[in-house]
């Protein structure tokens, strides 16, 4: 009876559905993984001796080098940029706050293409350099090739650091003030505060951002393959494509997935005893310290450099190319349709991801236990798989859903249906949500983790329902984290390629597929207009976000004067 009463009370609060929805979401995200596991079980495992002898030694060392190198770079760039724009006031700071996100707006493989064009011995940079040095032949000046491990790490570092910048800055903005001021009072230097106060406190955020960046690097196939780096992901492809051994490829993919999960769990385990929630009182924004002279210039350069390398240089190159193409090829008439398709499908997927991310994070906050923890981790699996592998894994579940829809339709109307899921684009939204859900859940979760549970308890004591706590306290407080999540997911959806290629309906082009079509033909410059359109539409939300986050904030958590919370 008691449990029944609890349940009915929860229904009254509007929260009882949360765990059920969370479970369903986790099941939907897990579906492609399960379908891959079924595939993998069909394989004999005979490829492993070959892999162990000839492929793994190189692939593992390449993969580790790439991940360690990229990891160090994204953490160094991401955290220091986030700290500079939060803790200091210097010219350009407000611009940098959002401009530091720009490298996210362009597909990594396009940046790789652009950099090879720019830095090739016969490209503009080396040609100008030779002219300046009075050299005539490329052989007289041999510079390191970007098509190398080093080149790949640099590129990933400067393109993927925004994930770390993003998550860390939110952390710095929301909770550091008191501790930093204590540090300052105690006479700690700027660097000391950064290294000994800010970084350790931001660790959950750094972990979230870095794991996103590293999964991107690990699962990338376009850029790293183009630059000659052979990660495990490349082995998945050659096993599948050249040896027609999809089960074997699924086996490799699942083992990689297990390793990724293990790494994430180890990191979480390592900080299991630490709590990062801010105090409920007087949490407020850090007052930035004004920098002058050389220090201001230094801060400016430290923020400008990653934006220049990760965005300005390749975008400028694309822009010049796009102008040249426009002159002789004109503007494609289908560009508008492609923009419409891209924005529509990405916006829908973003809304769904956000809604489900909220459900998952609230479920976990309201009932933190082993079950909800597993649900949350399972719902994040999609990002840990290479995009094509996820898309292949989705084919089976999508077919089952279409079968079910057809059966229901036959039962109800006597008429069968075609492939509703793929023909309607729902398959695409499913794929995007399955892939990017972790970004929205992670952002919401880390936003929530900064709100002390005593807030919830206080509100509940005052008679507020659980749903009311979420609506009236949590949501307003984590709205910056929500906006961030929306932006990241939206941009990632716009760029998404492998699942879009494989699962889209007939005659459905997005900016990313159009760009890829040109790139596949070797005329990616022709696609530069599409690439710039992705950048442009990725930029708009960024600027919007910057404007909202700059609006003056009411002092943090002092909310009792707002009606509703107090009397409930």
């Amino acid at each position, binding site marked *: 009876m008691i449990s029944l009463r609890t349940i009915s009370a929860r229904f009254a609060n509007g929260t009882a559905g949360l765990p059920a929805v969370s479970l369903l979401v986790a099941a939907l995200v897990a579906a492609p993984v399960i379908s891959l596991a079924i595939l993998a079980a069909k394989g004999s495992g005979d490829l492993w001796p*070959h892999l162990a002898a*000839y*492929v793994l030694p*190189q692939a593992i060392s390449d993969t580790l080098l790439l991940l360690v190198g990229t990891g160090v770079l994204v953490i160094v760039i991401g955290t220091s940029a986030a700290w500079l724009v939060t803790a200091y006031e210097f010219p350009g700071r407000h611009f940098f706050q959002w401009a530091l996100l720009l490298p996210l707006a362009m597909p990594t493989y396009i940046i790789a293409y652009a950099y*090879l*064009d720019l830095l*090739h*011995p*016969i490209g503009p940079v080396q040609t100008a350099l030779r002219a300046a040095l009075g050299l005539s*032949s*490329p*052989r007289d000046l041999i510079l390191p*090739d970007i*098509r190398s491990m080093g080149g790949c790490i640099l590129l990933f570092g400067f393109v993927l650091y925004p994930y770390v910048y993003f998550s860390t800055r939110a952390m710095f903005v929301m909770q550091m003030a008191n501790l930093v001021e204590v540090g300052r009072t105690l006479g700690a230097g700027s660097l000391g505060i950064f290294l000994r106060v800010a970084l350790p406190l931001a660790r959950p955020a750094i972990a979230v951002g870095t794991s996103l960046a590293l999964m991107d690097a690990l699962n990338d196939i376009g850029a790293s*393959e*183009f*630059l*000659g780096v*052979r990660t495990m992901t*490349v082995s998945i*492809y*050659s096993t*599948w*494509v*050249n*040896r*027609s051994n*999809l089960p074997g490829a699924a086996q490799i993919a699942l083992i990689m997935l297990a390793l990724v999960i293990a790494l994430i769990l180890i990191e979480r385990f390592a900080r299991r005893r630490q709590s990062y929630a801010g105090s409920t009182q007087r949490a407020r924004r850090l007052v930035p310290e004004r920098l002058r002279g050389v220090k201001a210039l230094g801060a400016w350069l430290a923020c400008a450099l990653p934006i220049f390398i990760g965005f300005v240089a390749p975008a400028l190159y694309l822009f010049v190319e796009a102008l*040249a*193409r426009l002159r002789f090829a004109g503007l494609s008439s289908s560009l508008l349709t492609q923009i419409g398709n891209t924005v529509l499908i990405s916006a829908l997927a973003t809304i769904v991801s956000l809604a489900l991310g909220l459900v998952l994070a609230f479920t976990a906050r309201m009932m933190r236990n082993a079950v909800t923890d597993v649900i949350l981790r399972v719902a994040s699996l999609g990002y840990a798989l290479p995009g*094509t592998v996820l*898309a*292949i894994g989705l*084919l*089976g579940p999508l*077919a089952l859903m*279409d079968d079910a829809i*057809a059966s229901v339709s036959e039962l109800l109307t006597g008429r069968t*249906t*075609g*492939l509703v899921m793929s*023909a309607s684009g729902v398959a695409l939204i499913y794929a995007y949500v399955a892939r990017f859900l972790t970004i929205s859940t992670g952002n919401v979760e880390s936003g929530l983790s900064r709100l002390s549970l005593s807030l919830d308890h206080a509100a509940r004591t005052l008679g507020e329902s659980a749903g009311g706590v979420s609506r009236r306290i949590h949501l307003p407080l984590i709205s910056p984290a929500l906006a961030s999540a929306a932006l990241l997911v939206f941009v990632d959806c716009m760029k998404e390629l*492998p699942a879009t*290629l*494989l*699962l889209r*309906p*007939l*005659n*459905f*082009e997005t900016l990313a*597929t*159009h760009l*890829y*079509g*040109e790139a*596949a*033909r*070797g*005329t990616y410059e022709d696609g530069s207009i599409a690439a710039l359109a992705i950048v442009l539409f990725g930029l708009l939300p960024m600027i919007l976000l910057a404007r909202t986050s700059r609006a003056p904030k009411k002092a943090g958590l002092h909310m009792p004067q707002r009606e509703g919370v107090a009397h409930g």
Partner: protein
Amino acid sequence: MAHAQEVNLYTVREPGLVKPLAEAFTKKTGIKVNTVFMNDGLAERVEAEGARSPADVLMTVDIAKLVEIAEKGIAQPVSSPVLEAAVPAQLRDADKRWFALSLRARLIYVSKDRVKDTAMNYEDLADPKWKGKICIRSGQHSYNIALLSAYIAHHGEAAGEAWAKGVKANLARKATGGDREVARDILGNLCDIGVGNSYYVGLMRSGAGGPDQEKWGAAINVLLPTFKNGSTHVNASGAAVAKNAPNRDNAVKFMEFLVSDEGQKIYTEENFEYPVKAGAQMHPIIKAIGDLKPDALALSEIAKHRKAASLIMDRVGFDN
């Protein structure tokens, strides 16, 4: 689902080529072509879609993919006198499940300035005299897997492995990038010779890829290599009619159009490919490469060795 006047095309071929083909077909027949352009996974998608799949024509590149479509049981046999007359027997499935539509030859690009050789065999690529001089794309790329498969078909697996090892030892840089990067790297003095497909020569030299690529194309001489037996390795693009095609008749019509003089002309004009149809027109840039004598081995014979070829590429560490 099945309207009389449309055909649904699943293709891995770029929109830049498919669009002109589809437009010409629609203009001629009034049949609308609905397209989805994808990459890896075409066969898996059709397989998963099963009986309700809207796919009519499956159009792909590389012999391995054509054979895979037949082996997966997602294609249906087509008895068409038009297709059989246009496509030579070694370029189509014995059981009529797929037909090659266009050909590309695997060629050797050499530096105009630095290489005097005017004729080479594929076997020569392993000659130590080219140490540090060769550029090539990934050994696991389907074009190179097909080349090594053909090598194995002619000389056996052990010889194939020795050859791959020899070529690897001669590489000037990592085996990566595309075929066009070979020409660009030759111009940039990173290497002297390299391996690339025939249509890239057309795409570069015609200016279709822009003025930069025209310079790359001008920096190379293009050799038409052969195996020691005197024939050149060709790969194919091709198509099949899907097993559950809702518009089967239109699918056959579309494929017949692709091997007609008009269709074949688009292949060579838009994408600089060799026609499959004897006597069909050829783009002047491609004609200038020389008289192609394609390997007489059936494509399906060559495709049998591709797993061995892929394993060899791993064993010799071709991409490391």
